[in-house]
């Protein structure tokens, strides 16, 4: 027998006795230790600070008001999109198409702000009931929905045999059927149908309204049905999320939690959005792979606006709903730093939206400066998430932020 700890403890099957003892002892010890936990902690590390329950409760009220307002706006914008698409489908023309596209952009901006309320199992992405996968899944494999360059017959729209009927129910069942990128519904499916594949290096996709005119393009009727159904689904899904907040059922759940858990959820939303989503999946991947289609709104070239709206959503939780107040008294220095970093990121992203270049142009740009600009944004997003994570640690909140 070797002199390795593993041999004596859990790693070994032959140390049966050892295991039993281990467990008995660890029960005793952990009971003992939890009684004297305070003492043990003060010796080995700073004692975690506790959150002020009254402050947290007051914040959760403000947070709930903010979320309610933003989901109500998002739903209204989606309904407006549905109306405009109704108009487009009834009378496809260049004008009605533009109106629908503008409505899509407004709806998208409104939704992007609400992404600050994702990633913690709330109504939007609850494990069993959250419709996020129907609303916003990305990346999208467009050939699953409609024809693309070189594959003129591909997609649900062109496959009458396999998909005889296109309506809300059939689309619902197809989305994410076999693969995370078989995205048949949500903002990006609508976007693809309005703009088409982005094959141009200088602008967004250039789908003609004639794709929706009978006799001009195969399956125009099915394309119209698809666009209508997919937009109604979006409205339905947003209604579901909205009502879980408006009728008070989720806010009640949030407030019933220990303050520590509720704040951990809210903050996980903020850090995950900035570190993993915005900086990671939405910017870094595109930059690393230098692939034009690897941007979030790849058909409309609207990604920079999305990113800015995401950041506004984060900033609103911090400033407008005043999350910072929860920490202000005992962590004023960190609070000041975070406020400064969040605004700086917002400014950087704002200047992005005034750019003459689009996201995909920057990604494939040969100009070094473009890359550096994007890297600076990524760095800022990392840094704001890290600062939030470090402050949270003081309260033993675990946000999964990389150090």
């Amino acid at each position, binding site marked *: 027998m070797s*002199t390795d*700890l*593993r*041999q*004596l*403890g*859990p*790693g*070994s*099957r032959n140390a049966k006795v*050892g295991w*039993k*003892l*281990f*467990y008995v*002892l*660890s*029960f005793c*010890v*952990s009971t003992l*230790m939890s009684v004297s*936990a305070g003492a*043990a*902690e003060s010796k*080995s*590390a*700073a*004692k*975690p600070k506790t959150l002020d329950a009254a402050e947290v409760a007051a914040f959760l009220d403000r947070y709930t008001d903010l979320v309610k307002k933003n989901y109500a706006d998002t739903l209204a914008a989606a309904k407006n999109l549905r109306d405009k698409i109704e108009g487009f489908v009834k009378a496809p023309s260049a004008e009605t198409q533009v109106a629908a596209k503008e409505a899509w952009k407004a709806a998208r901006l409104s939704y992007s702000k609400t992404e600050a309320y994702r*990633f913690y*199992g709330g109504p939007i*992405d609850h*494990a069993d009931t959250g419709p996020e996968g129907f609303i916003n899944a990305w*990346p999208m*494999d467009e050939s699953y929905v409609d024809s*693309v*360059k*070189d*594959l003129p017959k591909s997609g649900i729209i062109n496959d009458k045999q396999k998909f005889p009927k296109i309506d809300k129910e059939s689309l619902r069942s197809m989305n994410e059927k*076999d*693969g*995370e*990128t*078989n995205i048949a519904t949500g903002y990006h499916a609508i976007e693809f149908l309005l703009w088409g594949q982005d*094959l141009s290096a200088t602008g967004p996709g250039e789908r003609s309204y004639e794709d929706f005119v009978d006799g001009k393009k195969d399956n125009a009727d099915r394309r119209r049905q698809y666009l209508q159904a997919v937009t109604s689904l979006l409205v339905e899904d947003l209604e579901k999320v909205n009502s879980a907040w408006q009728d008070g059922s989720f806010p009640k759940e949030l407030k019933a939690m220990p303050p520590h858990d509720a704040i951990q959820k809210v903050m996980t939303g903020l850090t995950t959005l900035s570190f*993993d989503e915005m900086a*990671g*999946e939405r910017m*870094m*991947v595109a930059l*690393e792979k230098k692939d034009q*289609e*690897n941007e979030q709104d790849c058909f409309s070239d609207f990604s920079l606006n999305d990113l800015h709206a995401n950041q506004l959503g984060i900033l609103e939780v911090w400033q407008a709903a005043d999350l910072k107040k929860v920490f202000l008294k005992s962590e004023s220095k960190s609070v000041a730093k975070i406020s400064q970093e969040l605004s700086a990121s917002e400014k950087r992203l704002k200047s992005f939206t005034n750019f003459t270049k689009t996201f995909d142009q920057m990604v494939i740009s040969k100009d070094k400066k473009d890359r550096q600009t994007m890297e600076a944004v990524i760095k800022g997003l990392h840094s704001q998430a890290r600062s939030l994570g470090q402050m949270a*640690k003081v309260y*033993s909140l*675990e*946000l*999964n932020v*990389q*150090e």
Partner: protein
Amino acid sequence: MFKSKQSFFSRRPSLVAIYLGGLVAFLLVSVASTSSQVVASTSSQPMSIANAEYPGGQGTVTQVGGRAFSLPALGITDEQHKAFTVGNSIFRTNWVQAPASVTTLQGLGPLFNTRSCGSCHQQDGRGSPPRSERDEFVGLLLRISVPDAKDPLRMIDVPGYGDQIQSQSILGVPAEGTPRVSYKEITGKFSDGETFTLLSPTYTIENLAYGDLPKNLRISPRLAQQLVGLGLLDTIPEAALLANADPEDRDSNGISGRPNWLGPNGTAPLGRFGWKANKPSVLEQDAAALLGDMGITTPLHKNQECREGQVACQKAFSLKDTEMSMQDLLRLTAYMKLLGVPKRRGFLDPEVLQGEKVFHQIQCNQCHTPSFKTGVDPEFSVLSNQWIFPYTDLLLHDMGQGLADDRPDHQASGREWRTAPLWGIGLVHDVSRHDRLLHDGRARGVKEAILWHDGEAKSAKEEFIKLPKKDREALIKFVNSL
């Protein structure tokens, strides 16, 4: 960047007590069982501390819900995070038939099962068996083989088909066939009279495109696994795994534990991954999945597996550059190795603690070895020197005729399976919205999974049947807390 003990503590200050508790208990056990042989940390390496609430060691993530299996281990560097993020996108994105406008993702097929890794391992989670008899197979695939006519104990590829049924194909190439499953219910009783029902599957293959299958065909159904903590399993020192091996069952406890040696005539490397431990490393598992499941060549496998008689397949494929570069394969592998293990839930819940006691009492731990210390991964320090709690010995066990596929795989017999790691198992439902367990997803939840145990695990299963209901439920709750 290696985290010192101090920074580990400061990250989770409230848990210091438990760490110390675990450590003290550990040392006590060590003293108790072999008095003078206690070696804590003798080298210059930082000492890691075993804490079962953080099964993935320092990289453990705190996440439930749909993303529970999707986060990177904590404590990776910015460069590693970059590779992880790009790897994640490679994993999720659908590949397309060449030529296509998205040049970085072309090369799918000619034959394949699905178009992305994420199709089978949705959100890095477990695949699902088809929900009804006419549903397509997605996260479940059929490996096949046939006994060699000259040496019936040796399994060889099936003429015209190879070693896996590929149910999809690009335009102009016939897919191999359509797998189907049907279930028969079998019922049984616990000692207290409560009844249970199990689903016993039968597999068939329809729409055969390349001729009849041999009568003595062997089918091994395999469900896509959840993918957390693979880098840590990859890093467990071989000696630590072999220390548990007992191929001749010398301690005559009815449990053998055999390594699956994958080299010719039972030589190294040691298999660790897949339901029969038939792949030696995450890298090789990834490259095999790319080729076998999606038809994508890499520097590890430069040729398509078009079989004899699959003329259209051969024609559709022309050997140019490999379809995935080494750089992308390494990013994908970094992603796979770095997916973090979720923290346990309800760790100190009294019922969970009771269940944990039962787990050891009825000797589930004889195969589901709770803990190991990892060795050193030269590339990823988060994987190095970690006490981890995967609940597997990564060895093969005879699990009885009920679970047998009768399809030997390297050293694994037709009745042997690798002990499945149990970490993360309680979050399968959160991520995949189903609770189908075992190698082909026949079990609906932990209870049924235990009831299928047989062979070397027969005594554990029988003990489980005899338990009072309260203890059965505690045991299940414990397993679901992992």
